[in-house]
């Protein structure tokens, strides 16, 4: 660990966004203090560190807080450029491609996956499922064309996009039991299916992944809470 660097991560065990940060810190071999937040009773530190959104993850580096998972990943990569592998490639164009796909995952794929699971009506969930298929297939294309036969989006080793997508892996694995859907269906999206096995098995990744059965239980509880009116107004 870089000398004198104090890293504290405010998180929540089931959050895919928090998982991204854990993955990045693990891949880079950085030590940190982890603080589990109760999102229905947010700590003063969280509210003070992220007053605008009051969300996790927040990474506090030498007392300075950084919020938003993609921004945290880039900050880690830049602040610890000499420590462990780089998340983003060196070439400006390749960096732009990586940022493009990270944005796609968050702006297009995630909302579709969310809607397919948590949409309020049957129609909304069906529309979400349809959109999810489209976005996941687009991402399969990205892995095929940009990955060029390499094992990861980052090439020979895991990089930025792998971590961004990797954060979702816990929920992707839980999805089959929860919703009867395999987001990375080996028949439809063989490259992504193979990628998830490969990424999940990495030495730096495996110990950090949340327990899938625990996620399934949590997911069932969230679904029940959604179905039971009035909703408690719990924010994530």
């Amino acid at each position: 660990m870089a000398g004198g660097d104090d890293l504290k991560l405010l998180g929540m065990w089931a959050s895919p966004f928090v998982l991204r940060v854990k993955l990045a810190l693990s891949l880079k071999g950085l030590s940190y203090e982890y603080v589990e937040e109760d999102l229905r009773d947010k700590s003063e530190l969280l509210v003070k560190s992220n007053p605008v959104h009051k969300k996790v993850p927040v990474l506090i580096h030498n007392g300075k807080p950084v919020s938003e998972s993609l921004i945290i990943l880039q900050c880690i990569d830049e602040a610890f450029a000499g420590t462990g592998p780089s998340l983003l490639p060196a070439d400006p164009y390749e960096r732009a491609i990586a940022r493009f796909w990270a944005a796609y995952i968050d702006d297009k794929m995630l909302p579709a996956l969310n809607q397919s699971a948590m949409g309020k009506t049957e129609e909304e969930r069906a529309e979400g499922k349809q959109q999810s298929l489209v976005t996941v297939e687009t991402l399969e294309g990205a892995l095929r064309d940009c990955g060029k036969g390499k094992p990861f989006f980052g090439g020979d080793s895991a990089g930025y996009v792998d971590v961004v997508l990797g954060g979702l892996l816990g929920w992707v694995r839980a999805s089959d039991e929860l919703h009867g859907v395999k987001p990375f269906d080996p028949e439809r999206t063989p490259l992504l299916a193979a990628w998830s096995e490969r990424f999940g098995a990495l030495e730096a990744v495996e110990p950090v992944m949340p327990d899938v059965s625990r996620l399934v239980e949590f997911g069932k509880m969230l679904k029940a809470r959604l179905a039971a009116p009035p909703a408690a107004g719990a924010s994530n």
Partner: protein
Amino acid sequence: MSPPVKIIGHYASPYSHRVEMALQLKGVPYELIQEDLSNKSELLLAKNPVHKKVPVLLHGDLAICESLVIVEYIDEAFDGPSILPADPYDRAMARFWTNFIDTKFSQPIWLAYWSEGEAQKAVVKETKENLALLEAQLNGKRFFGGDTPGYLDIAACMLGPWIGVLEEVTGVTLVNGNEFPALCQWAKEYSSSEALEPCHPDRDRLVAYFTENKEKYKMMAKTMLQQ
């Protein structure tokens, strides 16, 4: 000789304008290809097959999409004054606020201009809260980036030329000098900036565009707020 730089863009799009600003600040000459958004060109569809949107930056054979991704690319691929700050934490702060603009700020303010009645009240309230956060970020500086425009100034460009136009066309006033003096001053600095002058949008053209599309945008806002 370095490969040619072109933007596939649209004169009324602040996202397209972000790219022009970045190239202008870097001192990179470029050609602007105006896209007809009602009849998208084969070039656009080929270069941005995923989103089919403007802006797209063409740098030689390379195509880069998504305005903020393009701006960071321009900062890294070309020599010239830096757009993002050097320190990783300062960069994270700049990215945080540009992300805020794109994910929290843009939609409510758009809805606030184009909606009416009861529905409008909630988005106006939200917009003013967001504007207050951005006002605070200026904190006595000429630009968000300091003495010269930087990443957040580029991202916030709709608060420059577009606000005046939208307020004229819709008759809705949001960014007033009483509540948001720093933002109003920023808009003045922006419009009188010599560095940005060559890519300033044509105000009359913007007014004509938004007037022409007024009914369409009002309909869209109504539909969105009903959901």
